């Protein structure tokens, strides 16, 4: 079971108090975008074995969406951070870099 800290309330939450929201840091392509971009925004999702960024919602509580950096292989949680951001905060990236040397990721533009 995952235990995640809600960055808005500071509570350690059980997975069953949360709602999964899939991959984080997707860039939205709406009207006027190319078919390829729109398809990629709608359907194409990463499924990494290792470091992954996800969206979770504190459903039984504050109701807030937040982001989680975790490892899909070991279930290790690197950290959580508020969703009002386009890319992971530097301190989270530093933690991942320290624990997973050589890890790289396509930073969203």
């Amino acid at each position, binding site marked *: 079971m995952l235990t995640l800290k809600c960055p808005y*309330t500071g509570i*350690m*939450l*059980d997975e*069953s108090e949360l709602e999964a929201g899939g991959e984080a840091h997707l860039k939205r392509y709406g009207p006027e975008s190319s078919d390829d971009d729109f398809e990629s925004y709608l359907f194409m999702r990463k499924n990494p074995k290792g470091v992954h960024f996800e969206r979770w919602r504190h459903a039984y509580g*504050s109701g807030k969406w937040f982001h989680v950096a975790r490892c899909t292989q070991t279930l290790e949680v690197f950290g959580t951070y508020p969703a009002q951001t386009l890319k992971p905060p530097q301190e989270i990236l530093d933690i991942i870099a320290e624990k997973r040397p050589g890890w790289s990721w396509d930073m969203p533009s």
Partner: protein
Amino acid sequence: MSEPVTALGGATFEGAVTITERPAQGMITIRADLSSAKIVKALTDVAGVAMPAMRGAVTSADTGLLWMSPDEAMLLCPYAESTETVAALNTALTGEHALIVDVSDARAVFRLEGSACREVLAKVTPADLREQSLPVGELRRTRMAQVAAALRFLDNTTVELICFRSVASYMFKLLSTAAAPSAQVDYRF
């Protein structure tokens, strides 16, 4: 005005802990930016208590303020005064971006009393009930089996629990089962 009727008519259960449905309580949900000094002043002026910190609750007699999330607070007041309190809040928050709703009739309140409170609750909620994670006075919104609830230890042997009125009967049966005398596990927190 008609007589307020609670969901279970003040039902009680005696077991590992004593479970009691509380009388009708005035509750007003406020959604607004709680980091705004103007909004905090309006809330504290109307409630007559200080603004609680994160996860906190400040109560005095019949009134109080509960911190529900960074943009949600709950104001407690006597049941009969909820309508005028909503009006007072609307006046105090004129011009501010805020949503104020009287939810008094949409909630049920239970009180658990006894030294086994943490044990009984731990059977039905995923929340960490150790005292270092959930100290006395802190409000914890969580799940009790299938339904949402907010609970707060008034002292180490008394818990006040708020849930939706529509699930009051489920909550009471759930807690009664968890508190059945034959179901004690004597877990030490």
